[in-house]
C-alpha cells in the first residue's frame, strides 16, 4: 500500500511540475506559436490532473475544450495576426517592467496557498444531499444531476452566455459580410487532413451519441458530446468537404436557439405542473432531462464550432 502511495504521489508531483513548467514557458517564451503549443499540452496535462482528482466529467471537458478547441482558436488567431499585424516591437526586459507585477502576483499566489492549506477539516460537502435526491431525478451520475436538475438555472444561463458570445463574435464582421459564412478552408488542404475528415466523423458522431446517453449514469454528457460534434464539423469544414454554413440560414439559427429555448420552455412548464421554475415532475424527470440534453448537445455543438470559425468574412449569396 505504501509503495503504491509513494508511486502515485510521485506521479502527481511530476504532473504538477509539468503544468507549472508549461505555464511558465507560455509566459517567458518569445515564440508566439510555441506558447500556443505549450498551452495545448498544458490543457491535455490538466485533463490528466482532473482525472487524478477523480473528476472524470471535468477531465473530459478540460481535454476537449481547454486543450483542443481553445488551442485551435488560438492557432487560427495567431495565423491571422501574422498576416495582418506587424510583429510587436521587442521590449527591453527592464526589471522595472516586470518586477512590481511579479511581486504582486507572487503575493496573490501566497495568499491562495494559505487558503488551500487552511481548508476546514472535516471538509464541507454536498455529496450526501446530491446522492440522497438522485432517485427523484432518475439519473445515476450526480454531476449530470447537479448540471441539469439541482442547479439547472446555472446551465441555462451558461447556454445563454454561449449564444450571447456568438452574437458578439458575429457582430464583429464587416458590414458587407453580415449573414455570410466564415472562410475556414486554407488555400492548400493537406491530403492527410482530407483523409481524416472523411474517416473520423462517423466515429465522432457515434462517440458523441454514446456520451449523451451514458452521461445520465456515468461520466460524460452534453458538453463533452457537443465538443466532439463541433470538432467533427470543424474538421469537415477545414478540409473543404463542406463549406461553412451561412450565418443567416434559418435552419442554423433554429438549431442554435433550439436547445436553450426548449430548456426555458420546460422550465416554465415546471411552474405549471411541478413545484416551480425548472423543477421536473418526478414521474417523467429522466425522459425530460435526456430530451433537454439531446437538444442542448446540438446547439452546443453548433455554437462551439461557429465560435471557433469566427465572424463571417464572405458576403452572403443573394
Amino acid at each position, binding site marked *: 500500500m505504501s509503495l503504491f502511495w509513494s508511486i*502515485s*504521489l510521485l506521479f*502527481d508531483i511530476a504532473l*504538477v511540475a509539468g503544468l*507549472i513548467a508549461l*505555464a511558465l514557458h*507560455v*509566459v517567458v517564451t518569445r515564440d*508566439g506559436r510555441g506558447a*500556443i503549443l505549450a498551452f495545448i499540452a*498544458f490543457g491535455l496535462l*490538466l485533463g490528466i*490532473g482532473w482525472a*487524478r*482528482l*477523480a*473528476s472524470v466529467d*471535468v477531465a473530459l*471537458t*478540460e481535454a476537449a*475544450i*481547454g486543450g483542443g478547441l481553445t488551442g485551435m*482558436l*488560438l492557432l487560427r488567431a495567431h495565423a*491571422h*495576426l501574422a498576416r*495582418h*499585424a*506587424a510583429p*510587436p*516591437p521587442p*521590449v527591453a526586459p527592464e526589471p522595472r*517592467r*516586470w518586477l512590481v*507585477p*511579479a511581486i504582486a*502576483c507572487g503575493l*496573490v*499566489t501566497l495568499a*491562495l496557498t494559505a*487558503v*488551500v492549506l487552511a*481548508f476546514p477539516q*472535516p471538509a464541507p460537502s454536498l*455529496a450526501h444531499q*446530491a*446522492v440522497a435526491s438522485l432517485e427523484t431525478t432518475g439519473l445515476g451520475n*450526480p454531476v449530470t444531476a447537479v*448540471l441539469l436538475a439541482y*442547479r439547472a438555472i*446555472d446551465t441555462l444561463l*451558461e447556454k445563454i452566455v454561449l449564444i*450571447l*458570445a456568438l452574437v*458578439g463574435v458575429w457582430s464583429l464582421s464587416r458590414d458587407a459580410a453580415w449573414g455570410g459564412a466564415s472562410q475556414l478552408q486554407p488555400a492548400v488542404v493537406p491530403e492527410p487532413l482530407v483523409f481524416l475528415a472523411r474517416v473520423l466523423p462517423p466515429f465522432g458522431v457515434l462517440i458523441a451519441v454514446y456520451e449523451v446517453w451514458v452521461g445520465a449514469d456515468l461520466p460524460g454528457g452534453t*458538453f463533452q458530446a457537443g465538443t466532439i460534434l463541433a470538432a467533427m464539423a470543424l474538421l469537415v469544414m477545414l478540409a473543404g468537404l463542406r463549406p461553412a454554413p451561412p450565418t443567416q440560414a434559418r435552419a442554423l439559427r433554429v438549431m442554435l436557439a433550439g436547445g436553450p429555448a426548449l430548456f426555458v420552455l420546460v422550465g416554465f412548464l415546471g411552474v405549471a405542473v411541478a413545484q416551480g421554475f425548472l423543477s421536473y415532475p418526478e414521474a417523467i424527470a429522466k425522459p425530460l432531462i435526456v430530451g433537454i440534453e439531446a437538444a442542448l448537445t446540438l446547439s*452546443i455543438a453548433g455554437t*462551439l464550432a461557429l*465560435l471557433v470559425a*469566427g465572424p463571417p468574412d464572405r458576403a452572403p449569396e443573394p
Partner: protein
Amino acid sequence: MSAMALTSASLFGLCGAALVGIGLFCIVSHPDLLRRIIGFNILGAGIFLVFGAVARRGAAMELGGDPVPQAMVITGIVVAFAATALAIALLRRLASLTGSATFEAPAAPPRSEP
C-alpha cells in the same frame, strides 16, 4: 477519506495557486495581446484547480468528490471558452483595423511640441 486523497487534493490546490499567479502575471505584464488571452486561460485553470481540490476533499458517499463544485467547474470551462472566443474575435478585428496586435506605443517616434 484517505490521507492519500487529502495529500493529492492539497497538491493540486497548491498547483492551482501557482497557476493563478503565473496567469495573472502574464495578463498584466505581457505586451502581446494574444499571450494575455492565454494568460487569462491559465489564470482560469488555476482557479478551477483550487475548486477541484475543494471537490476532492468533499469525497463522500462512495463518490470520488463533491459533485457540486465539479459541475460548477464544467460550467466555468465552457464560459471561459466563450469569453476567449469573443476576446480573440475582438483582437482579430483590432489587428485588421490598426495593423497592430498590442497596446504598446510604437517604437517612440519623437513627439513634436505643440
